[in-house]
């Protein structure tokens, strides 16, 4: 099963981003950076993909779509959140219909910093993710149940807005995420 970590297939989805990070993801595939030399192939089909590269802070309408793509991917799978707004909402943090980070919707394994994230750091993030992927694979092989289902991350944008989460509890959560992001950057 080394195939997965030696030649991971990626799928890219734009979860309400500004496009800046998306075109940098595409730039990774093109001759200047050319991730295909590492065996990484971009696919349009979630059922073929091992790694989900997701950008953007995920708005209310996009939440079910993101979950669906995630659930369609076969295990083991990892999610790489690209850009500051995928980490904690970034510049859109205070917008009214934004979940404020991909990890409120689906589990995230690696955070890539930058606004916009540079192709070098995106590649670095994917390579870091491969380590996580190998671990998950080993865990699955030893008979552990699959932890990667989006159901555990049910996030309701309406109650989120009502509770005024942004002003109250959220600051701490945001700090956690940005710490994680710093670690990922190291």
């Amino acid at each position, binding site marked *: 099963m080394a195939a997965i970590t030696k030649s991971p297939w990626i799928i890219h989805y734009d979860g*309400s981003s*500004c496009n800046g990070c998306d075109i*940098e993801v595409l730039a990774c595939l093109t001759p200047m950076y050319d991730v295909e030399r590492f065996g990484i192939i971009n696919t349009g089909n*979630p059922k073929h993909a091992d790694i989900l590269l997701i950008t953007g802070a995920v708005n209310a*309408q996009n939440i079910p779509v993101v979950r669906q793509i995630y659930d369609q991917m076969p295990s083991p799978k990892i999610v790489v959140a690209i850009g500051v707004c995928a980490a904690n909402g970034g510049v859109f943090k205070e917008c009214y219909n934004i979940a404020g980070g991909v990890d409120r919707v689906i589990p995230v394994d690696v955070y890539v910093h930058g606004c*916009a994230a540079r192709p070098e750091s995106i590649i670095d993030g994917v390579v870091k993710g491969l380590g996580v992927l190998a671990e998950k694979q080993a865990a699955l092989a030893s008979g552990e149940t699959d932890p990667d289902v989006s159901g555990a991350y049910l996030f309701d944008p309406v109650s989120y807005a009502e509770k005024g989460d942004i002003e109250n509890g959220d600051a701490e959560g945001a700090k956690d995420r940005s710490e994680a992001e710093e670690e990922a950057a190291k």
Partner: protein
Amino acid sequence: MSKRTVIPFGPQHPVLPEPIHLDLVIEDETVVEAIPSIGYIHRGLEKLVDKNEWPEMVYVIERICGICSFGHGWGYCKTIEGNLGVSVPPRAEYLRTILHELGRMHSHLLWLGCLADGFGFESLFMHSWRLRETVLDLFEETTGGRVIFSICKVGGMRKDIPNEMLKKMEETLRGIEGELHELADVFLDDDTVKSRLVGVGVLTKEEAFELGAVGPMARASGVNNDVRLDGHGVYGEIGFEPCLEETGDSYARCKVRIREVFQSIDLIAKCVSMIPDGDVAIEIKGQNPAGEFVGRIEQPRGEAYYYSKGSGQKFLDRIRVRTPTNANVPPLVKILQGCELADVPILVLTIDPCISCTER
């Protein structure tokens, strides 16, 4: 009459980097109706004027879209400057025009690549994006960012770009001109490419005018509505003729954009030879926007419109942006009617959709 079927297209789709959803009503292989539904990238960032003071808002507006981010920053600055009644130094206007045209090159090369990918010509996609990297390197050298620059501010530019660097920029662009011609030849002369583009998705001049098409989409049908003609920036001084085509099919739209890439190089060269020395920003102190103002910019995709309303406070009352893709959706729906199902991705691509602009 055969049975009608509805095929959902998107939001997650291999040819489009961004989510848009279309319901395609088809009969056999022919599309009879296309119903777009959008909203996957709506962030509501016009509302952020309540949270950000107007000088900071430019960084938010730049992030409407990562492809034409410089143009958005400029459009916002333009409406605020108009609102305040100030004018920026000439050198700043020249620098803005240069960076805007560079942005157009980057956007069009990106689009050419996506189009090639759309009809399955992978190596052409790779070559377009390889040349685009040269443009991005120039951006990085002069502004520090590859796609988001934050170099435009209300009142001018955040920093100057030295003349030597501008000269070098021109030389670099002239250096890739030969390769761009090779690329253009494949797009315009190759039989396989032509068979996918010529005569597909025709939008007549009348339709383009009536449906309010903007940008290359309108110019490919012969409608001359380039906002650069009103002389914003320094387009009036350096002289400018829009690229027009007559046929209105996908091929014409491709041709307009290719011609504009070369035109941008010429415009940049003209700016570099004419740029005056001097300050690049004026200081704005103790003044807040009061009243309304509209600024218009010709973005790579067409006319973008920026409205601002202030009441003399640090926070604006309202910002409204209308972006070119928004205007180009009705013509898209029109050209999709009666097309072959296999042509749908190409036709969607030929309006150069930017969904994050449209929905903000």
